[in-house]
Protein backbone atom coordinates (compact mmCIF):
# COMPACT_ATOMS: atom_id res chain seq x y z
CA UNK A 1 0.00 0.00 0.00
CA UNK A 2 0.89 3.65 -0.27
CA UNK A 3 2.90 5.39 2.38
CA UNK A 4 3.66 9.04 3.12
CA UNK A 5 6.55 9.20 0.66
CA UNK A 6 4.35 7.96 -2.21
CA UNK A 7 1.75 10.56 -1.35
CA UNK A 8 4.31 13.34 -1.17
CA UNK A 9 5.74 12.38 -4.57
CA UNK A 10 2.26 12.34 -6.14
CA UNK A 11 1.34 15.65 -4.51
CA UNK A 12 4.37 17.32 -6.07
CA UNK A 13 3.75 15.80 -9.52
CA UNK A 14 0.06 16.65 -9.36
CA UNK A 15 0.80 20.32 -8.99
CA UNK A 16 3.56 20.22 -11.63
CA UNK A 17 4.24 17.05 -13.67
CA UNK A 18 7.41 18.60 -15.12
CA UNK A 19 9.37 18.69 -11.84
CA UNK A 20 12.54 16.61 -12.40
CA UNK A 21 13.05 13.52 -10.24
CA UNK A 22 16.10 15.06 -8.56
CA UNK A 23 14.04 17.99 -7.34
CA UNK A 24 11.14 15.75 -6.26
CA UNK A 25 13.65 13.75 -4.19
CA UNK A 26 15.08 16.91 -2.64
CA UNK A 27 11.64 18.20 -1.67
CA UNK A 28 10.74 14.83 -0.13
CA UNK A 29 14.12 14.60 1.63
CA UNK A 30 14.75 11.35 -0.21
CA UNK A 31 17.11 10.01 -2.90
CA UNK A 32 16.48 10.23 -6.67
CA UNK A 33 16.91 6.45 -7.00
CA UNK A 34 14.29 5.87 -4.30
CA UNK A 35 11.84 8.27 -5.96
CA UNK A 36 12.42 6.62 -9.37
CA UNK A 37 11.77 3.21 -7.80
CA UNK A 38 8.57 4.47 -6.13
CA UNK A 39 7.33 5.96 -9.42
CA UNK A 40 8.02 2.68 -11.20
CA UNK A 41 6.03 0.83 -8.54
CA UNK A 42 3.13 3.29 -8.75
CA UNK A 43 3.07 2.74 -12.52
CA UNK A 44 3.11 -1.06 -12.32
CA UNK A 45 0.27 -0.96 -9.79
CA UNK A 46 -1.60 1.42 -12.13
CA UNK A 47 -1.94 4.10 -9.50
CA UNK A 48 -0.09 6.44 -11.85
CA UNK A 49 -1.63 5.75 -15.23
CA UNK A 50 0.22 8.22 -17.39
CA UNK A 51 0.77 11.81 -18.36
CA UNK A 52 -1.26 13.73 -20.90
CA UNK A 53 -0.67 17.01 -22.66
CA UNK A 54 -3.37 19.58 -21.94
CA UNK A 55 -4.75 21.09 -25.14
CA UNK A 56 -6.06 24.66 -24.95
CA UNK A 57 -9.04 24.46 -27.31
CA UNK A 58 -9.61 28.20 -27.25
CA UNK A 59 -6.15 28.76 -28.75
CA UNK A 60 -7.06 26.34 -31.55
CA UNK A 61 -10.10 28.48 -32.30
CA UNK A 62 -12.76 26.59 -30.33
CA UNK A 63 -14.19 29.45 -28.30
CA UNK A 64 -17.42 27.74 -27.24
CA UNK A 65 -17.68 24.89 -24.74
CA UNK A 66 -21.03 23.41 -23.75
CA UNK A 67 -22.05 20.66 -21.33
CA UNK A 68 -24.94 18.70 -22.76
CA UNK A 69 -26.86 16.69 -20.17
CA UNK A 70 -29.01 13.86 -21.43
CA UNK A 71 -31.71 11.71 -19.94
CA UNK A 72 -32.12 8.59 -22.06
CA UNK A 73 -35.18 6.54 -22.88
CA UNK A 74 -34.51 3.53 -20.66
CA UNK A 75 -37.42 1.48 -21.99
CA UNK A 76 -34.95 0.41 -24.66
CA UNK A 77 -32.34 -1.95 -23.21
CA UNK A 78 -29.73 -0.90 -25.77
CA UNK A 79 -30.25 2.84 -25.22
CA UNK A 80 -26.97 3.44 -23.36
CA UNK A 81 -24.75 1.43 -25.70
CA UNK A 82 -26.22 2.84 -28.88
CA UNK A 83 -26.16 6.39 -27.57
CA UNK A 84 -22.53 6.13 -26.43
CA UNK A 85 -21.36 4.55 -29.69
CA UNK A 86 -23.01 7.32 -31.70
CA UNK A 87 -21.63 10.04 -29.40
CA UNK A 88 -18.06 8.73 -29.79
CA UNK A 89 -18.43 9.28 -33.52
CA UNK A 90 -18.99 13.03 -33.18
CA UNK A 91 -15.69 14.86 -33.70
CA UNK A 92 -16.46 17.82 -31.46
CA UNK A 93 -17.17 15.68 -28.39
CA UNK A 94 -14.16 15.88 -26.02
CA UNK A 95 -15.51 13.95 -23.02
CA UNK A 96 -18.26 11.48 -22.21
CA UNK A 97 -19.42 10.78 -18.66
CA UNK A 98 -22.17 8.52 -17.39
CA UNK A 99 -24.00 9.15 -14.11
CA UNK A 100 -26.26 7.81 -11.45
CA UNK A 101 -28.80 10.53 -10.77
CA UNK A 102 -31.22 12.70 -12.67
CA UNK A 103 -28.78 12.95 -15.58
CA UNK A 104 -27.72 9.77 -17.43
CA UNK A 105 -24.98 11.01 -19.73
CA UNK A 106 -23.06 14.21 -20.14
CA UNK A 107 -21.15 15.21 -23.26
CA UNK A 108 -18.60 18.01 -23.34
CA UNK A 109 -18.66 19.55 -26.78
CA UNK A 110 -16.63 22.36 -28.30
CA UNK A 111 -17.37 24.64 -31.24
CA UNK A 112 -15.67 27.51 -33.06
CA UNK A 113 -18.52 29.95 -32.46
CA UNK A 114 -22.27 30.00 -31.88
CA UNK A 115 -23.07 29.35 -35.55
CA UNK A 116 -20.78 26.33 -35.51
CA UNK A 117 -22.42 25.16 -32.28
CA UNK A 118 -25.88 25.58 -33.78
CA UNK A 119 -24.84 23.40 -36.73
CA UNK A 120 -23.35 20.74 -34.44
CA UNK A 121 -26.48 20.79 -32.26
CA UNK A 122 -28.96 20.46 -35.14
CA UNK A 123 -27.11 18.07 -37.40
CA UNK A 124 -25.39 15.77 -34.96
CA UNK A 125 -26.51 16.12 -31.34
CA UNK A 126 -30.25 16.00 -32.02
CA UNK A 127 -29.70 12.93 -34.22
CA UNK A 128 -28.29 10.89 -31.33
CA UNK A 129 -30.50 7.90 -30.55
CA UNK A 130 -32.80 7.41 -27.51
CA UNK A 131 -32.74 10.97 -26.12
CA UNK A 132 -35.66 11.62 -23.81
CA UNK A 133 -34.50 14.91 -22.31
CA UNK A 134 -31.65 17.26 -23.07
CA UNK A 135 -30.40 20.44 -21.46
CA UNK A 136 -27.37 22.59 -22.12
CA UNK A 137 -25.00 24.43 -19.81
CA UNK A 138 -22.81 26.96 -21.55
CA UNK A 139 -19.36 27.39 -19.99
CA UNK A 140 -18.63 30.97 -19.08
CA UNK A 141 -15.41 30.57 -17.12
CA UNK A 142 -13.35 27.86 -15.52
CA UNK A 143 -12.18 28.83 -12.04
CA UNK A 144 -10.42 25.65 -10.98
CA UNK A 145 -9.25 22.86 -13.26
CA UNK A 146 -6.39 21.11 -11.54
CA UNK A 147 -8.47 17.98 -10.94
CA UNK A 148 -6.03 17.29 -8.13
CA UNK A 149 -6.87 14.67 -5.52
CA UNK A 150 -6.64 15.86 -1.90
CA UNK A 151 -3.81 13.41 -1.11
Amino acid at each position, binding site marked *: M*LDDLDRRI*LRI*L*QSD*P*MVPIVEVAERCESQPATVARRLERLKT*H*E*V*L*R*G*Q*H*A*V*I*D*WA*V*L*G*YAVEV*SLRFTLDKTNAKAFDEFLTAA*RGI*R*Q*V*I*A*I*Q*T*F*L*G*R*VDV*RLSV*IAKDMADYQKLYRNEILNLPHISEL*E*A*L*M*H*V*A*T*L*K*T*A*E*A*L*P*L
Partner: protein
Amino acid sequence: MIPWDKLDFALMRALSEDATQSAGSLGRDLGLSQPATWRRIKRLQEAGVLAGRRIDLNAEALGFGVTVFLGVKLATKGLVSLEDFERAVTAIPEVQTVQHVLGLYDYRLRVVARDISDFERVLRRRIMALPGVGDVEANVLLSEERLTGPL
Protein backbone atom coordinates in the same frame (compact mmCIF):
# COMPACT_ATOMS: atom_id res chain seq x y z
CA MET B 1 -3.97 32.53 -36.08
CA ILE B 2 -1.17 30.16 -37.02
CA PRO B 3 -2.40 27.54 -39.47
CA TRP B 4 -1.41 24.22 -37.96
CA ASP B 5 -0.79 21.41 -40.43
CA LYS B 6 -1.47 17.69 -40.35
CA LEU B 7 1.81 16.90 -38.58
CA ASP B 8 1.09 19.44 -35.85
CA PHE B 9 -2.28 17.83 -35.22
CA ALA B 10 -0.68 14.38 -35.19
CA LEU B 11 1.75 15.67 -32.52
CA MET B 12 -1.08 17.14 -30.43
CA ARG B 13 -2.93 13.84 -30.64
CA ALA B 14 0.13 11.78 -29.70
CA LEU B 15 1.04 14.06 -26.78
CA SER B 16 -2.49 14.23 -25.42
CA GLU B 17 -2.42 10.44 -25.28
CA ASP B 18 1.09 10.20 -23.78
CA ALA B 19 3.01 13.36 -22.93
CA THR B 20 6.16 11.51 -21.87
CA GLN B 21 7.18 10.53 -25.43
CA SER B 22 10.49 12.01 -26.57
CA ALA B 23 10.85 14.19 -29.66
CA GLY B 24 13.00 11.43 -31.15
CA SER B 25 10.40 8.68 -30.87
CA LEU B 26 7.52 10.98 -31.92
CA GLY B 27 9.57 12.03 -34.94
CA ARG B 28 10.22 8.41 -35.92
CA ASP B 29 6.46 7.71 -35.86
CA LEU B 30 5.71 10.76 -38.02
CA GLY B 31 8.73 10.59 -40.35
CA LEU B 32 10.30 13.75 -38.96
CA SER B 33 13.82 14.34 -37.67
CA GLN B 34 14.29 14.78 -33.92
CA PRO B 35 15.17 18.52 -34.20
CA ALA B 36 12.23 19.21 -36.54
CA THR B 37 9.85 17.48 -34.14
CA TRP B 38 11.30 19.38 -31.20
CA ARG B 39 10.85 22.71 -33.05
CA ARG B 40 7.19 21.91 -33.76
CA ILE B 41 6.52 20.98 -30.12
CA LYS B 42 8.20 24.19 -28.97
CA ARG B 43 6.06 26.22 -31.39
CA LEU B 44 2.90 24.56 -30.07
CA GLN B 45 3.98 25.32 -26.50
CA GLU B 46 4.80 28.94 -27.29
CA ALA B 47 1.44 29.44 -29.01
CA GLY B 48 -0.24 28.02 -25.90
CA VAL B 49 -1.92 25.12 -27.73
CA LEU B 50 0.03 22.72 -25.54
CA ALA B 51 -0.90 24.24 -22.20
CA GLY B 52 1.06 21.97 -19.88
CA ARG B 53 0.55 18.46 -18.65
CA ARG B 54 -1.59 16.60 -16.19
CA ILE B 55 -0.87 13.28 -14.53
CA ASP B 56 -3.55 10.65 -14.67
CA LEU B 57 -4.02 9.16 -11.21
CA ASN B 58 -6.21 6.20 -10.42
CA ALA B 59 -8.50 7.88 -7.88
CA GLU B 60 -9.99 4.60 -6.71
CA ALA B 61 -6.60 3.04 -5.99
CA LEU B 62 -5.76 6.12 -3.94
CA GLY B 63 -8.87 5.69 -1.80
CA PHE B 64 -11.21 8.10 -3.56
CA GLY B 65 -14.06 5.83 -4.55
CA VAL B 66 -16.69 8.45 -5.32
CA THR B 67 -16.76 11.34 -7.78
CA VAL B 68 -19.85 13.53 -7.82
CA PHE B 69 -20.80 16.38 -10.11
CA LEU B 70 -22.81 19.10 -8.43
CA GLY B 71 -24.95 21.69 -10.13
CA VAL B 72 -25.19 24.68 -7.82
CA LYS B 73 -27.65 27.52 -8.05
CA LEU B 74 -27.02 30.60 -6.00
CA ALA B 75 -29.91 31.49 -3.69
CA THR B 76 -30.00 35.23 -3.88
CA LYS B 77 -28.39 36.51 -7.03
CA GLY B 78 -27.21 40.07 -6.69
CA LEU B 79 -27.22 40.01 -2.91
CA VAL B 80 -24.30 37.65 -2.49
CA SER B 81 -21.02 38.43 -4.03
CA LEU B 82 -19.94 35.97 -6.70
CA GLU B 83 -16.35 36.58 -5.62
CA ASP B 84 -17.09 35.40 -2.06
CA PHE B 85 -18.70 32.22 -3.34
CA GLU B 86 -15.93 31.59 -5.87
CA ARG B 87 -13.15 32.21 -3.37
CA ALA B 88 -14.73 29.85 -0.83
CA VAL B 89 -15.58 27.07 -3.28
CA THR B 90 -12.18 26.95 -4.98
CA ALA B 91 -10.52 26.63 -1.57
CA ILE B 92 -12.26 23.32 -0.73
CA PRO B 93 -9.69 20.56 -1.31
CA GLU B 94 -12.31 17.97 -2.34
CA VAL B 95 -13.60 20.26 -5.08
CA GLN B 96 -11.51 19.42 -8.14
CA THR B 97 -13.02 21.71 -10.74
CA VAL B 98 -15.25 24.75 -10.66
CA GLN B 99 -16.96 26.04 -13.78
CA HIS B 100 -19.16 29.07 -14.07
CA VAL B 101 -21.99 28.11 -16.43
CA LEU B 102 -25.10 29.58 -18.02
CA GLY B 103 -28.28 27.56 -17.92
CA LEU B 104 -30.14 25.64 -15.27
CA TYR B 105 -27.28 26.16 -12.77
CA ASP B 106 -24.77 28.86 -12.02
CA TYR B 107 -21.81 26.64 -11.16
CA ARG B 108 -20.73 23.14 -11.92
CA LEU B 109 -18.42 21.41 -9.42
CA ARG B 110 -16.52 18.16 -9.58
CA VAL B 111 -16.10 16.71 -6.09
CA VAL B 112 -14.14 13.64 -4.94
CA ALA B 113 -14.73 11.73 -1.73
CA ARG B 114 -13.58 8.49 -0.13
CA ASP B 115 -17.09 7.00 -0.09
CA ILE B 116 -20.71 8.07 0.09
CA SER B 117 -20.62 8.96 3.79
CA ASP B 118 -17.47 11.01 3.21
CA PHE B 119 -19.31 12.74 0.36
CA GLU B 120 -22.17 13.50 2.71
CA ARG B 121 -19.69 15.17 5.08
CA VAL B 122 -18.26 17.32 2.24
CA LEU B 123 -21.76 18.21 1.05
CA ARG B 124 -23.10 19.18 4.48
CA ARG B 125 -20.10 20.78 6.10
CA ARG B 126 -18.50 22.42 3.10
CA ILE B 127 -20.80 22.84 0.11
CA MET B 128 -24.00 23.69 1.97
CA ALA B 129 -22.01 26.12 4.14
CA LEU B 130 -20.87 28.17 1.14
CA PRO B 131 -22.06 31.79 1.08
CA GLY B 132 -25.13 32.20 -1.10
CA VAL B 133 -25.59 28.55 -2.05
CA GLY B 134 -29.14 27.66 -3.05
CA ASP B 135 -30.36 24.65 -4.97
CA VAL B 136 -27.85 21.78 -5.34
CA GLU B 137 -28.20 18.81 -7.69
CA ALA B 138 -25.89 15.82 -7.40
CA ASN B 139 -25.03 13.19 -10.01
CA VAL B 140 -22.65 10.37 -9.11
CA LEU B 141 -20.05 9.65 -11.81
CA LEU B 142 -20.12 6.06 -13.08
CA SER B 143 -17.74 6.20 -16.02
CA GLU B 144 -15.67 8.73 -17.85
CA GLU B 145 -13.83 8.78 -21.17
CA ARG B 146 -11.84 11.58 -22.68
CA LEU B 147 -11.64 11.82 -26.43
CA THR B 148 -9.10 13.59 -28.61
CA GLY B 149 -11.97 15.59 -30.15
CA PRO B 150 -11.33 17.40 -33.41
CA LEU B 151 -7.53 16.82 -33.36
